[in-house]
């Protein structure tokens, strides 16, 4: 019986063997020796994550990434590949903590990173890392700076402000309650003044500290020349404080400190919700795959050094293992392999490369290790050129005015005008003096202050975004949610977006006298089994396609892999070969041309070999593959057409293939053989017609188009850069989420508008009272919290009646 490896969980491939390789057996021993055998009982293996199989590696040197701490200790941040569950966290942390000199070893499960701090020699870090790689986790150093982004700092500052405001609200309320319900007769003027004094003592520092986000945003909006909601908020807060302070010193009856603090508290809650939803989407959208590509292993004498990609220079020798991403543009000096170019060119099949061939940063080395001489430093690589092209387009994008901001454009000036008129009314008509008039004007500002307005949008956004996450749709900006509502055109890329982007076996034929002969089911099964047994270990996309199409038991074969040509073995004393026609010594050119002519089997690119041959004894077979169209593509396109959306297909592939896909899906408008630049040109024409469009694409070649689009959608298996640019990242192979997105965003927008309407109506009722001078602090507080609650309850209806 073949069992799963006791350490990594992979098939052992040999009968009655406990481990799949020596590395696993050694790792198992280490873990048992250290007394962590419980780990195997507690862990849960997640099949989607890299197995914890130790790889034989050169000694790595992370010196470039080590930070020297003030107290003489050293620290390094590492990404951990192979973290399956909390048991892994426990295992790694416990093992490291048992080592001498380790001060801190802490894993962040959310980010999948390890922070390691130790005393003594800076070089000891390498040893510590080695221990963990020995048990099968892969550790990659990265620059902690990348994580300390402005986003994170902003997030922390909002949370801090929220905490302080919460403290302020709680404490000011203690006094306010007393003030609301006891009149001066009962508590005496001195006590009241004392309470006012304490309120101001608490409220002022709190307000100064926690209103900064609003004031800075208000200043920015003034500079930019269009007043936003934050300006109205800032002015209201400022006036409420100033007037209340004045009243406190005058020993007057009403102060509004509680309203001001409560306002800030509510608004900060809205901000925080907004941030949290986005942060979650970002974290899942695997920003860390981006980091993974941001270093390279460089030969330095006999040692291997890991360098951040920024420091990769022309002339260095870069080592790229099988399955790894190439970190810089260069020329191969050693090794033969195939590389996956799909993210750069959109081609489905890997390209064969050997000595003196050029390779590009961002592509993936598939088969065997390569030594590459770097010809361009990272800043000049093809990858960075495409990235900077996209960045340029992204920043030149029109500024989109969001629903709430559109409203505030009218609302803010109107409210200020109203407050000013109130002041004039009381001051010059009723002649009650400027203090009293200012008081009433401030009451107008407080009561109209867009507290509910400011909550209206973020609440919906948070609910919508977290609902989408459950469905595997990551919406990275709330703006996208609003824009989705105004879309007229939907532009698809082909490879990887409409199609799966990987070859899939579609038919097998026997070859005899240059004719192809159909097989019976049993025959087909037999040959497929042989092919799958051969292909089991190979990483080539064609091999994977064969393995994927046969699910039964496999034969145990000793397989020999000839780089870039094929696989061979011996079965039942007959030679078994799988690969290109020359490798299998089959003359099959005729058959291929014939097949292409008939067009019943599809070849992806004219020159690419989306077919492979097998020879078993005297039997010659041909396998045909196609880049399969996603199962629900046709249905989704139909639905989109029903919604009156125009569909465009934009591909870098050759005419024949694109035309075939377009025909199958009934897409009238399609463009083929497009470069990243020409794609942008076509889309600019669409834009010039004043149409709003969604771009759906996955490749690096789509990145500039994604940046240009009003809403960009990408896939979780797409190029890192595309995922980073895209507003929405969809997980899985389905297109249905696009429909869900459009439908659900429509509902979200209508609820947002309802919320805004409720808030506005509320103000409409309350404002006359404020103008008339009836609004004492208690009424202001009730109005503010009840309108916020109403908006909240309305938003909770979001989940009703929608199957998402």
């Amino acid at each position, binding site marked *: 019986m073949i069992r799963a490896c006791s350490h990594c969980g992979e098939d052992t491939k040999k009968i009655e063997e406990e481990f799949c390789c020596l590395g696993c057996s050694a790792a198992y021993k280490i873990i048992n020796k250290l*007394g*962590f055998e*419980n780990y195997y009982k*507690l862990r849960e293996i997640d099949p989607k994550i890299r197995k914890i199989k130790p790889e034989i590696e050169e000694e790595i040197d992370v010196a470039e990434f080590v930070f020297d701490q003030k107290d003489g200790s050293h620290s390094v941040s590492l990404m951990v590949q192979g973290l399956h*569950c*909390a*048991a892994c*966290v*426990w295992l790694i942390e*416990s093992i490291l903590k048992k080592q001498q000199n380790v001060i801190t070893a802490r*894993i*962040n*499960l*959310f*980010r999948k990173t390890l922070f390691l701090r130790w005393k003594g020699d800076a070089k000891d870090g390498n040893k510590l890392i080695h221990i963990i790689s020995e048990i099968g986790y892969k550790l990659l150093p990265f620059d902690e700076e990348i994580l300390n982004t402005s986003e994170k700092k902003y997030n*922390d500052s909002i*949370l*801090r402000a929220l*905490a*302080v405001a919460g*403290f302020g609200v*709680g*404490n000011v309320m*203690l006094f306010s309650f007393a003030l609301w319900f006891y009149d001066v007769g009962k*508590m*005496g003027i001195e*006590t009241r003044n*004392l309470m006012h004094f*304490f309120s101001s003592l*608490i409220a002022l520092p709190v307000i100064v500290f926690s209103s900064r986000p609003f004031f800075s945003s208000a200043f920015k909006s003034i500079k930019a020349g269009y007043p936003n909601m934050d300006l109205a908020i800032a002015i209201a807060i400022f006036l409420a404080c100033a007037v209340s302070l004045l009243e406190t010193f005058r020993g007057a009856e009403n102060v509004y400190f509680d309203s001001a603090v409560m306002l800030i508290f509510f608004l900060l809650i809205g901000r925080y919700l907004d941030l949290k939803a986005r942060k979650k989407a970002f974290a899942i959208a695997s920003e860390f795959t981006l980091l993974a590509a941001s270093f390279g292993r460089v030969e330095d004498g006999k040692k291997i050094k890991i360098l951040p990609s920024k420091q990769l220079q022309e002339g260095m020798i870069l080592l790229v293992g099988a399955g790894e991403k190439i970190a810089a543009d260069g020329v191969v000096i050693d090794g033969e392999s195939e590389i996956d170019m799909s993210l750069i060119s959109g081609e489905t099949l890997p390209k064969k490369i050997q000595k003196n061939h050029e390779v590009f940063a961002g592509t993936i080395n598939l088969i065997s290790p390569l030594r590459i001489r770097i010809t361009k430093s990272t800043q000049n690589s093809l990858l960075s050129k495409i990235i900077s092209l996209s960045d340029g387009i992204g920043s030149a994008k029109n500024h989109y005015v969001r629903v709430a901001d559109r409203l505030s454009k009218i609302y803010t000036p109107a409210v200020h005008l109203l407050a000013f008129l109130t002041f004039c009314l009381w001051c010059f008509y009723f002649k009650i003096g400027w203090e009293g008039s200012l008081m009433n004007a401030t009451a107008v500002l407080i009561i109209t202050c867009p507290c509910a307005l400011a909550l209206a949008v973020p609440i919906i956004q948070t609910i919508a975004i977290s609902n989408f996450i459950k469905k595997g749709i990551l919406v990275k900006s709330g703006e996208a949610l609003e824009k989705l509502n105004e879309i007229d055109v939907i532009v698809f890329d082909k490879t990887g977006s409409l199609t799966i982007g990987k070859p899939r076996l579609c038919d097998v034929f026997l070859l005899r006298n240059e004719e192809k002969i159909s097989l019976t089911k049993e025959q087909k099964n037999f040959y497929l089994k042989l092919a799958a047994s051969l292909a089991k270990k190979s990483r080539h996309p064609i091999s994977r396609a064969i393995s994927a199409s046969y699910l039964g038991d496999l034969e145990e074969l000793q397989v020999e892999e000839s780089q870039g040509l094929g696989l061979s073995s011996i079965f039942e004393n007959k030679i078994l070969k799988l690969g290109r026609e020359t490798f299998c010594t089959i003359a099959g050119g005729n058959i291929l041309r014939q097949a292409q002519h008939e067009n019943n089997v599809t070849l992806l690119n004219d020159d690419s070999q989306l077919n492979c041959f097998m020879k078993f004894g005297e039997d010659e077979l041909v396998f045909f593959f196609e880049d399969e169209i996603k199962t629900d593509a046709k249905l989704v396109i139909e639905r989109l057409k029903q919604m009156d959306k125009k569909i465009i297909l934009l591909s870098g592939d050759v005419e024949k293939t694109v035309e075939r896909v377009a025909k199958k899906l009934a897409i009238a408008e399609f463009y083929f053989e497009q470069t990243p630049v020409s794609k942008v040109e076509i889309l600019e024409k669409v834009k010039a017609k004043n149409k709003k469009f969604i771009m759906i694409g996955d490749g690096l070649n789509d990145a500039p188009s994604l940046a240009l689009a009003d809403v960009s959608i990408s896939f979780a298996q797409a190029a890192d850069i595309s995922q980073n640019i895209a507003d929405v990242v969809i997980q899985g192979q389905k297109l249905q989420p696009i429909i869900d997105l459009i439908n659900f965003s429509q509902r979200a927008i209508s609820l947002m508008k309802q919320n805004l309407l409720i808030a506005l109506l509320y103000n409409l009722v309350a404002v006359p009272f404020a103008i008339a001078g009836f609004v004492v602090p208690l009424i202001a507080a009730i109005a503010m919290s009840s309108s916020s609650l109403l908006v909240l309850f309305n938003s909770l209806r979001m989940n009703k009646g929608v199957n998402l």
Partner: protein
Amino acid sequence: MSVLLFLIPITLALSLLGLGCFLWALKSKQYDDLEGAASRILFDDQDKNSDKK
């Protein structure tokens, strides 16, 4: 009412303490990884047991 003169400072001191604790927790990065913290608590016991053995 003079009791207020004691009670108010006490309230303030207590709530400032709470605020201080929160800000400290935030600064020491305890809010960076809420998921990890939630599951890590399950394993601390295990750790101690295996040490005792």
